């Protein structure tokens, strides 16, 4: 009897093994094939079901809390470095001699930059996701105050008098001028779009603020970004300088003599069919030199080489003797060392017309780049010691500070900030995301078109060989895990497919990601990218009166005249929470002549306020235009009965939408508070 039982048990186990081994495996194969759109992706359940897990316990087990140094500053005596650890929400105080972290000071969320005040009593940290500045006493190394800023503070500068702090507000596209005595913002100055970098001329007269986004323009119009000039004395905007064909102007620095200011930039060819990548020259990267003389020009020179690009130039510093400049080429993990004498020779000896051509000349860099120095992963902020002998590099995805001797141009021993030594799958994916190594000739990284894991505000020609066909607006990659399918035509059911072999065929034009790399980048995209809080439009989750009215319009089924709105004419039908998409394809009457006849994937609306322009081809510059200019037939929601106030309410509500994580845990809304009381 016992034997029989054992035999039955054995039989069941055998049966299970057979099922798992044959039909089960077959099913798993079919499942993986469907998910990845290839037939040979390894059957590894952990790829999808472990590394992309958002279960907090699993996530805690498989991930690490990295530091991610982003920007830094140094005391005049060179003994202490102040390092912004972006992922740790901290400022690290580092002893440069012992190369040890002396103190970890908690600051606001997602800090961006740090600057030391004039008399070295305080330093200031911009907290980009808290909309404030942490004031830190440099003797006690404690946060002593917090100053409110505009939306998304990033780059910082101190006025020549030392009395004012300038905080660049990236999300608000302006600069907060802060009185350091009263510790209050006294005014805001408008800038170009998505600004970050700021520098005060050594003579203390002019401040330059760089923009990362180009001005929104119809597809086909040339790209123009703006460099903003502010007078430090009057604290007024004095000039908006157009920089053609460039964007992602991350940072800027002056020469010690103030004769030049130099900024980093990228030159995208978004109007050229993306298939042209293999022809080279699709995305080029370089510097913009702003002459400070009367009627001075802006000369753009590329850091790239004909077969090897140096993408995503981030920071730039110039030595106190004005002889060398250093640029962090964060997309290839290099520091490009520039001879400033060579730059000046080029400017002096080249006719103006020819200088313009240099903006597209790949070989020009050999005339002024004197060395490329390898760094740790994703070099970002740079800082020179006061004597200019040492260059410190925030190696963002290495959790280290690289050190370079500026005379020998050799690397010295890095400073380990003490981050986790284990590189997780998602961390590996993040490195891949920020590195151009997987693109033909290193032309660009995912980051290039998706800065801050978001989108670059440009419209690209994604057609094969035909110019101007299938132009599409870059989409954000923030928290897209639950928003499949992907692409505007919804043809990619998973990130695996999106970033798989088709991706290399169309976009990177080189070897596709290895499956390990594909697993890693998928893990990062699906788990590692967070929305910034929507502090400008919805800081607490409680809707304003206007937003609440807009929500009612969003959910309405009856129009202003009392008629029932057809189900497919209601906003909420296609855009239900928490992603505000029903994940279906739809025709909203926006197909243009240049589009292949397709339906469009219903986009998610989380943080939609930050994703202008709108619609698949970016034709709507603002949310209002979706309906005022492109919604005449009521095909994209039933809206034409609305008054202007109602449309404003609807837009106010749309702008209030936050990331899905926030939407799941809503505090009391206007509806709950106000209607219950009535």
């Amino acid at each position, binding site marked *: 009897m016992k034997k029989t039982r054992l035999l039955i048990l054995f039989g069941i186990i055998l049966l299970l093994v057979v099922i798992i081994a044959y039909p089960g495996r077959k099913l798993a194969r079919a499942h993986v094939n469907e998910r990845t759109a290839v037939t040979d992706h390894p059957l590894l359940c952990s790829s999808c079901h472990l590394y992309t897990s958002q279960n907090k316990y699993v996530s805690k087990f498989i991930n690490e809390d990295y530091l991610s140094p982003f920007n830094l500053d140094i005391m005049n005596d060179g003994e202490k470095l102040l390092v912004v650890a972006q992922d740790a929400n901290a400022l690290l105080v580092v002893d440069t001699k012992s190369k040890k972290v002396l103190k970890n000071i908690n600051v606001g969320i997602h800090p961006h930059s740090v600057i030391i005040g004039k008399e070295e009593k305080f330093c200031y940290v911009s907290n980009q996701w808290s909309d404030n500045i942490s004031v830190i006493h440099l003797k006690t190394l404690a946060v002593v105050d917090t100053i409110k800023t*505009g939306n998304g503070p990033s780059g910082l500068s101190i006025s020549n008098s030392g009395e004012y702090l300038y905080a660049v507000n990236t999300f*608000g596209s*302006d600069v907060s001028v802060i009185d350091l005595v009263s510790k209050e913002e*006294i*005014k*805001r*100055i*408008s800038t170009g779009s998505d600004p970050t970098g700021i520098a005060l001329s050594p003579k203390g007269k002019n401040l330059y603020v760089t923009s990362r986004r180009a001005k929104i323009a119809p597809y086909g119009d040339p790209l123009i970004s*703006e460099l903003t*000039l502010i007078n430090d004395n*009057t604290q*007024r*905007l*004095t*000039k*908006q300088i157009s920089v053609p064909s460039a964007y992602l102007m991350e940072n800027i620095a002056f020469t010690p003599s103030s004769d030049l200011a130099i900024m980093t930039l990228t030159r995208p060819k978004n109007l050229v069919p993306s298939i042209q990548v293999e022809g080279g020259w699709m995305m080029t990267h370089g510097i913009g030199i702003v002459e400070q003389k009367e009627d001075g020009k802006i000369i753009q020179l590329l850091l790239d080489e004909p077969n090897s690009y140096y993408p995503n130039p981030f920071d730039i510093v110039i030595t106190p003797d004005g002889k060398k400049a250093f640029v962090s080429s964060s997309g290839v993990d290099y520091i490009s060392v520039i001879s400033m004498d060579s730059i000046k020779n080029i400017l002096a000896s080249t006719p103006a017309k020819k200088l313009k051509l240099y903006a597209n000349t790949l070989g020009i860099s050999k005339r002024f780049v004197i060395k490329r120095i390898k760094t740790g992963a994703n070099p970002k902020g740079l800082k020179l010691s006061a004597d200019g002998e040492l260059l410190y590099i925030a190696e963002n995805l290495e959790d280290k500070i690289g050190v370079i001797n500026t005379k020998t141009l050799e690397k010295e021993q890095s400073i380990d900030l003490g981050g986790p030594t284990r590189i997780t799958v998602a961390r590996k994916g993040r490195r891949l995301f920020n590195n151009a190594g997987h693109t033909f000739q290193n032309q660009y990284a995912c980051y290039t078109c998706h800065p801050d894991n978001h989108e670059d505000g440009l419209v690209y020609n994604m057609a094969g060989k035909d110019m101007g066909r299938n132009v599409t607006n870059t989409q954000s990659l923030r928290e897209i895990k639950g928003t499949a399918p992907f692409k505007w035509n919804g043809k990619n059911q998973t990130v695996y497919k999106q970033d798989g072999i088709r991706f290399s065929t169309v976009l990177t034009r080189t070897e596709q990601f290895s499956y390990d790399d594909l697993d890693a980048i998928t893990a990062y995209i699906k788990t590692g990218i967070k929305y910034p809080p929507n502090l*400008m*439009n919805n800081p607490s989750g409680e809707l304003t009166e*206007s937003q609440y009215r807009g929500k009612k319009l969003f959910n309405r089924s009856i129009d202003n005249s009392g008629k029932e709105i057809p189900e497919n004419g209601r906003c909420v039908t296609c855009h239900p929470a928490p992603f505000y998409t029903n994940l279906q394809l739809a025709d909203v009457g926006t197909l243009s002549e240049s589009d292949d006849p397709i339906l469009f994937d219903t986009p998610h609306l989380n943080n939609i306020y930050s994703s202008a322009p709108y619609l698949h081809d970016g034709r709507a*510059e*603002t949310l*209002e*235009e979706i309906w*005022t*200019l492109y919604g005449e037939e009521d095909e994209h929601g039933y809206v034409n009965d609305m*008054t*202007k*106030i109602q*449309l*404003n309410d609807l*837009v*106010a509500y749309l702008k209030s939408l936050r990331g899905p994580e926030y939407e799941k845990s809503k505090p009391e809304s206007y509806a709950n508070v106000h209607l219950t009381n009535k």
Partner: protein
Amino acid sequence: MIFTRFIKYLKVTVLTIVIFSICFLKFDLNAQNSSIPVFGNWKNFTVKDGLPSDKTYCVRIDGDRVLVGTHDGLAVYENNTWKTYTSEDGLAHNGVLSIDVCKLTGDVWIGTMGGLTRWVSGKFENFNQFNSGMPNDLIYSVICDEKYVWVATGGGAGQYNTHTKKWEIFTEENAPMHEPWTYGVCAGDDNIYIAAWGGGVIEYAKKTKKFRDHVDPDGNMEIDLFPDDGVVHDITTGTSWANGNLWVATYFGLSKYDGVHWKGYFDHDSGLASNFINYVKAEGSVAYLCTDKGLSCTDGTNWVTYTKNKNNVNGKVVFTKGENIKEITMSPSISHNFTLGVDIKKDVIWVATSKGISRGELKK
């Protein structure tokens, strides 16, 4: 001998009378115009001088330059030269109806017949009813109030928060307006005052965000039946606040409100040039009133009115205090009697008229 003595006494008497008369007249004029600056040395500019159009709608002094809204663009007078900006340069529309300059940032806000333009350091940024939450493209009035920009438009009043980049609209749907047509807006004493066509003055309290309206209590559209009972007419064309007083322009007279009492002024009982007032600008204790028959200035008691002769460039300035009226000829005078805009800074006044712009200097 007697005749000689008589002549001597007569001379002394006449001299005394003359001296007393001069002293009295001087005293009287001073009394009439003690708080009102008097301008003269008028210089007029038209298309011949470089203006894009003789039809000028508004004027704003901005430091060393003067910004003039015309029918054919924005004209800027700087270093004795006029320069014009039009829609080809980026202006929302060539018909520029109102201009204000933000004291904090120096940004210039331009209300046009086809949208609102922010003009800063040579760049134009346009807002219209299609690309933004702005109520309507016809902007009659624009003012900057700290971080807010207010507009009075053909489709309601609008408030733009330059920090959050959001618009809020006020129309008959959500404010005590007769209809959405608004003509003027001004800030003062923690309030915003909107001149609403047919709705009198709409007062918006910035702290509480509540409205109250000031309408003509007698409700009569033809005449002001009961003087000083409220705003003189519900059809208002402009508001301006200074020194604790709100001045309200209508096509039927002028009103002053000190927060408690209303006072009405008309052409038949004061020195006001005409009841048809296009624009009002208060500066200190004086209100400057652009009418269809000249420019009037008043502190509520004394009046100074500038007019131009029909057939030549000359004109006169009329001083009025109660029954006392004094006229002085001016050569030249203002450019045209149909005045639409005025701005004053220290010793200079600029007046926008339907036939050119006039610049006057303070007479000392």
